[in-house]
Structures are given as C-alpha cells and as structure tokens.
C-alpha cells in the first residue's frame, strides 16, 4: 500500500467558541480523492489547513511528509485553486500568472512560456489573454484559477469546487485534464458539492460532517463497511420472479420486490462479499436475458446521504 500523502492526527480547529474541525484523524492516499460534505462540514477549514493558510488549534497534519504551516518548501509542492473569486481584476491573465510563477520560484526566462502553456492547458482562448480579469466570465475566471494552481507543476493539487461556473463542456474538459494530471503522477484533492462530478473522477473519498470525518477511503470499502445497510440491486430481466426464486434458494437475499409486468426485480443482498463473485454464474444459471443491472445504493450520492444521515 502506498504511503499517505496527507496524514492528520487528532486535528482540531476552533474559531472562538465554534469548532471548525473536531479531533479528526485520517490518511489520504495517492491519486484523486474527493472531499465531500454539506455546507459547514469543515471542508474549507480542512483545505485551508492543508494548504498552509491556517494552523490547526491542536493535533498534527502533514502534507507530503511535512507540516504545511509556514513551510515554503512544502507549499512549493502544492497547487491550490480556491472556491472564492480570488483574482485581481485590474490584471491580465498572463501578467498575473507570470507574477505568480515568480512567486513559486520559476526562473524569469521560463515563467512566460510556462504561464502561456498553463493557460492553453485549461483551454482559455488565446484571444482572451489580453483582456483584464475583471472582464472575464465566471467560467473563464475558474480556468485562470486552475491555471495558476497547475503552472508550477505541483505534486499535490488542492481544488475547492473547481467546476463552479463552468458549462457542461467545460466541466468535461476540466475533468479530463484532472485525470491526465493524475495519470502523470499528480495527487489531487478535490472538493465539490456536485457529487455526480466527483463520481467518475474519484476512487477515494472523504466525507465530512459537523467537523468530523464520517468516512474515508475507497468508495467500495466505505460501502462494505456499512453493514447495517444492505447492498441493493435492481435488475431488468425477462422473468423477475424466476430470478428471485433462484437467488432465494441460494440464500443470497434479505428481501426482494418483483414486478413481473415491468420485468423488474429489486433485491437486497445478504452477504455482498460472497454474492458478487457468484453473480455472473447465477445470471447464467437463470438462463434468461438480463437487460440492465443498477446498483441501488452504491452511488456517491446515496453513500453520502447514508453516511451523513441526510
């Protein structure tokens, strides 16, 4: 198993009497990790601690092996795209990125081409590079924020709601870029309230609520840990009742709901670990055409709802 890129131990953060994070401990593994939670869950506080902008009130948090607070060498390995508007409106994108590149320690001779390449990478049209940031649409600003985060080629990219304000095509493009960055070995921590966007991107997730970590790790591991919440499948087939009978005889079901007319069988599985390896042979044994199989409660949204009791 790879070493965690972020390790937190008993981390708390207080804002006066309000607790932003409550003694949380977790490990974030390499790859793309989704950070999800309702408003006020502590996501932004956690991101600010990870990016070295806030100091934990207690506990320790290390990023790439070091505490990020006031530690420029660690910060040099991070790229951060904040959720809020954070652009100086009087500057042009290339001008701003060039300055930020110098802040990141890029050499003066190379910073211009790197800034241009970053803007090209986030698909900001070259015709817009000469405009002031104040004239940009929300989607264009989002791309510039992403460009500044990736321009110094960080090892860890922390993105807070990076899809905000982007049109569907833009979201797809950004998702593709993130996948390619991950394929190049960049670790990504991405927070989003649009869970459907995170679903195809993230194998690992961390769910926060009320300043506590409700679940963390690979999605299927989180799902299998919820033993009081049976796995549920919906199958569209020719003869739902026959299939239900076959599964019942095999001792796989906790319960089922068959709609013969609609050709639909919804069933809850007793032992997912034992069931799924046999599922393909069971389908063959039923000797009927299966049109569709849907997981009733494996999606990120249902997992999130279950874990946060929302």
């Amino acid at each position, binding site marked *: 198993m790879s070493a965690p890129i972020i390790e937190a131990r008993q981390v708390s953060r207080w804002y006066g009497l309000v607790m932003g994070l409550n003694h949380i401990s977790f490990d974030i593994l390499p790859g793309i990790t989704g950070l999800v939670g309702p408003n006020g869950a502590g996501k932004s506080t956690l991101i600010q601690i990870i990016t070295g902008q806030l100091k934990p009130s207690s506990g320790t948090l290390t990023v790439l092996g070091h505490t990020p607070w006031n530690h420029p060498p660690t910060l040099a390995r991070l790229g951060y795209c904040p959720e809020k508007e954070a652009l100086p409106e009087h500057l042009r994108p290339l001008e701003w990125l060039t300055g930020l590149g110098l*802040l990141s320690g890029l050499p003066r001779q190379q910073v211009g081409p790197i800034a241009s390449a970053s803007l090209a990478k986030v698909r900001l049209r070259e015709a817009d590079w000469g405009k002031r940031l104040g004239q940009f649409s929300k989607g264009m600003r989002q791309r510039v924020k992403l460009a500044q985060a990736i321009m110094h080629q960080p090892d860890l990219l922390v993105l807070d709601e990076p899809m905000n304000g982007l049109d569907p095509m833009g979201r797809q493009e950004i998702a593709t870029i993130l996948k390619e960055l991950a394929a190049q070995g960049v670790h990504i921590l991405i927070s989003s309230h649009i869970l459907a966007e995170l679903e195809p991107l993230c194998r690992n997730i961390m769910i926060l609520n009320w300043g506590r970590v409700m679940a963390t790790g690979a999605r299927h591991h989180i799902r299998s840990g919820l033993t009081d919440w049976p796995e549920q499948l919906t199958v569209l087939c020719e003869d739902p009742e026959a299939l239900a009978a076959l599964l019942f005889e095999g001792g796989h079901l906790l319960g089922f709901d068959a709609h013969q007319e609609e050709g639909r069988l919804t069933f809850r599985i007793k032992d997912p670990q034992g069931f799924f390896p046999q599922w393909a042979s069971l389908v063959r044994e039923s000797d009927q055409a299966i049109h569709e199989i849907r997981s009733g409660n494996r999606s990120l949204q249902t997992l999130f709802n279950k874990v946060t009791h929302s």
Partner: protein
Amino acid sequence: MMNLLPDLYEHWKGQARGIWHRRLAVAAQAFRSVWSNKWVRHLSLAAWVLCLGQSAILFGVGQLLVKDSVIYTVVNQMDAQPRALVGGLVSWILERPDLSVSSTYGLCFYYFTRWFQPLSLVLVTLMIPSLISQDLSSRAIIIYRSKALGHGDYLFGKFMAVFGLLGFVWLLPIMQAWLLGCLLSPEWSFLWHARLALFQSVGFVVASITFLSLLAMGVSALSQREKATTVIWLVLWILGHFLAKSQGEDHPWLAYLSFTHILDQWAIQLFNPSAHVSQLMENLPILGSFTSLTERWMRFPTAEGSAPWVGAAIMVGISLIILKRKVKPE
C-alpha cells in the same frame, strides 16, 4: 480520448529560485501596481526635479564660498551687509573649511530633506489602496498565501515595494543632490567636509521611510475597501497634524498621534540645526544684522528626547498587529 494537453506543455524540472527572488517578485508586483498610477509617476518626476533644484542651490552656496566666483563678484557689487556676509564666509572657509562646509551643508540638508516629506506623504496616500487593500478586496491574498512563501515573506515583499518607491523619491534624490552639490562645489574637499550632512540625511530619510512604509502597510490592511484606506490615512495625517499643532502644548502626548510631528522631532534630533546656526553665528558675527533671517533660523522646535521614538514604536507596533490580524485568508 482526445488529448487536451497541448504539446508545448511539459513538466518543469528546473531548480526553483530562492526565497529572496520570491520576495522580490512580491515587491515587483506591488511596485508595478503602484507605478501604473500616473500621479505616482508625476510625483516621482517632481521629486527628481526638486533634487536638481537643490543641487543648483548647493552650487550657488558653493560659489559664495570662493573669492573669484561669479556669484561672489555679483554679491560684492550689492549692499554692505551681503558683501560682509559673503566676505565672512570666504574668510571662514579659508580658516576652518571643515566647520564652515559642515555647518552650511548640515543646515541646507535639514531643510532639503524636509522638502521631500509632503511629497512622499502624498505618494503614500496614492499608494495605500493598491498595497494590501487591493489584494484583500480581490481575495487574491488567498492565492498568494498558498504559494511558496513564509507568512512574513508576502509582507516583507510589500514593505520592499513601499520602501523602494519612497527611497526612489526621497532617499535617492537627496543623495543625488548631495553628490551633485559636492561635485559642483569649488573644491573636492567639500565631499569630505560635507559627509556629516549626508550621513544625517540618509539616517533621517531611512528612518522616516521605514516608519512611513510600516504605517502605510498597516493602514492599507485595515479595510478591504480601497477608498476607505485612503480616507483613514488622510484622517491620520491631517487630524494628527492638527492635534499636534493646536493641542500639543496643553497635552503633549497628543502630539505623538501625529506622524508628521514625530518626523519633525527626528529631524531636529538628527540634524541638530540649532548647533549649526550657533556655529554660523559665532563665526560670522555679521549674521546678527540679519535679524529677521536669524530669528527665523533660530525658531526650531525643542527636541523632545525619546518620546517621539516611543510614539513611533507604538504606532509601528499597532501597525504590525493590524498586519498580523488582517492579512490572512478569511
């Protein structure tokens, strides 16, 4: 899947530049932002024109100290009083060039350094909105703080920008005026004899611009609204000055709410103009007949010991507390 990464995009594997380069990058960005204001450019030009004027005055003063100069000849054709004064100056320089040049330059530079002060204060007024306030209002501070900088580095970079600009319109012109004045003087020995005036000027100006830079940064961090910071600075400047002038005698501590009063006191303490005037009076008894001039010269404020330095330290302390509390992500 279509490759969205353009071919030109490659992983950068070079060696990152050191922390001083990054601090300078903060300073350069702030400087560019301030410099984009045309009034800042005009004021900077005015400072350099002023410095050339001062060099011309020093040239004139230098010419008064030699017997065969044009100015000496012209003055000698005037009334008895100016003739006697210039004659006295010439004799004095022949006898004690060290004291005469030192006193003359010391007194000149006491006034010269002060001429740049209002100009620099106007410049600070123009600078304040784009210093820190702009980064707070645009929230770009969040991104700057996530870059490879320590917590003090961003502020240090901003300090370098203000210090650099004030140095450009105050410190460099005064040094330039001194150098040009000495180079245009009748003797090379002026360079040596006038050294104290240079040290006093540099000491005073460096202390003043450090003080003003830290105050300006504190005021700029006070609000996200750029206009509000300008108003706060003007209120501090004008109200403080008014309090120092109107109430300073009855309530001396009120005078230390004024940074201009503090600067006045520093100038008095560092240049000690009364000592220069006394020296001139002792060596040039003819000055006694210029009653109105000497009375004016002798009307220097009384030096107030360590109080102005304590006042400045308290102001800087407050400014640093504001910077620590305000310059951070929301």
